[in-house]
C-alpha cells in the first residue's frame, strides 16, 4: 500500500515536471540562462536522478553501519535494496549526462573529474554486487558487503566536491543560473518526484527481499 502511494504520487509529480519543463520553462529565457533553458528538459531529469543515486548510496552507508552495529538481516536487506536502486539511478544519470554532454558540448564523454568520479561510483557498487555473488555464507556476505558499502561511500563526497573543480567540461554550480522561481520550483518538483519513486521502489524491494529471506529460512528448516 505504502509502495503504491509513493509510486502513484511520483508518477503524478513526474508528469507535472514534464508539463512545467515543456510549457513554463521555455518562456523564461533570458541572456543569462539561455543555455540552461535550451537544455532544460534534460537538466530537470539529470539533476533529480543524480540526487536520488547519491541519496541511495547514503542510505547504503547508513544501513551498512546499522547492520554492523545490530547484526540483523533487515539492515543488510535495506543496504542491498538501496545499492541496487543506486546502481539503477547512477546508470540513468550517466546516460542522461552523456546525452546532455553531446547536446551541449558536442561530445558523449570526457575524462574530467565529475564524469570520472561518477563512473567510478557506478563501478564501486557493481563490485558490491559481485562481492555479494561470490560469498556463499549469508552472515559473512552481509558483513563484508556492509564494510564495502561503508568504504564505497567515500566516492560520494568526491562526486559532490568535483562540482567546485574548475577547468572541466561538466558545469559547476555557477553554471546553474536558476534565476527564476519557476525554474527552482520545476527542479524541486522533479527532485521530490524521483525521491518518492526511490522510496516506493525501496519499500517494494525491501518487502520482496524480506519474503525471499523468510522463504530461504523455511527451506533450510524444511531441509534440516
Amino acid at each position: 500500500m505504502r509502495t503504491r502511494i509513493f509510486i502513484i504520487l511520483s508518477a503524478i509529480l513526474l508528469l507535472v515536471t514534464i508539463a512545467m519543463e515543456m510549457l513554463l520553462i521555455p518562456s523564461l529565457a533570458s541572456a543569462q540562462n539561455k543555455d540552461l533553458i535550451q537544455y532544460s528538459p534534460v537538466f530537470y531529469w539529470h539533476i533529480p536522478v543524480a540526487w536520488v543515486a547519491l541519496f541511495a548510496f547514503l542510505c547504503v552507508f547508513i544501513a551498512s553501519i546499522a547492520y554492523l552495529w545490530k547484526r540483523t538481516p533487515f539492515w543488510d536487506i535495506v543496504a542491498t535494496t538501496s545499492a541496487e536502486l543506486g546502481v539503477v539511478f547512477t546508470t540513468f544519470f550517466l546516460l542522461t549526462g552523456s546525452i546532455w554532454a553531446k547536446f551541449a558540448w558536442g561530445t558523449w564523454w570526457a575524462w574530467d573529474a565529475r564524469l570520472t568520479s561518477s563512473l567510478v561510483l557506478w563501478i564501486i557498487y557493481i563490485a558490491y554486487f559481485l562481492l555479494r555473488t561470490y560469498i556463499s555464507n549469508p552472515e559473512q556476505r552481509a558483513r563484508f558487503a556492509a564494510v564495502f558499502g561503508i568504504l564505497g561511500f567515500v566516492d560520494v563526497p568526491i562526486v559532490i566536491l568535483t562540482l567546485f573543480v574548475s577547468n572541466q567540461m561538466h558545469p559547476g554550480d555557477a553554471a546553474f543560473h536558476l534565476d527564476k522561481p519557476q525554474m527552482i520550483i520545476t527542479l524541486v518538483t522533479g527532485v521530490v518526484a524521483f525521491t518518492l519513486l526511490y522510496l516506493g521502489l525501496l519499500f517494494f524491494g525491501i518487502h520482496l527481499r524480506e519474503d525471499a529471506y523468510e522463504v530461504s529460512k523455511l527451506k533450510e528448516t524444511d531441509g534440516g
Partner: protein
Amino acid sequence: MDNAGYIVTAFGVVWIGLFIYLFVLVQREKALRKEIAALKEDMKKA
C-alpha cells in the same frame, strides 16, 4: 541528431530503464509467490 532528438532520447532512457527495472521486480515477485505456494503445498502434504 537535432535538439528534440536528444531530449526524446534522454526521456526515453529514463522511462524505458524504469519500466525494465519494474518488470524485473514484478518477475521476482511472481517467482517468489510461486516458491511460497510450492512450500505451502509441501507443508500440507507433510
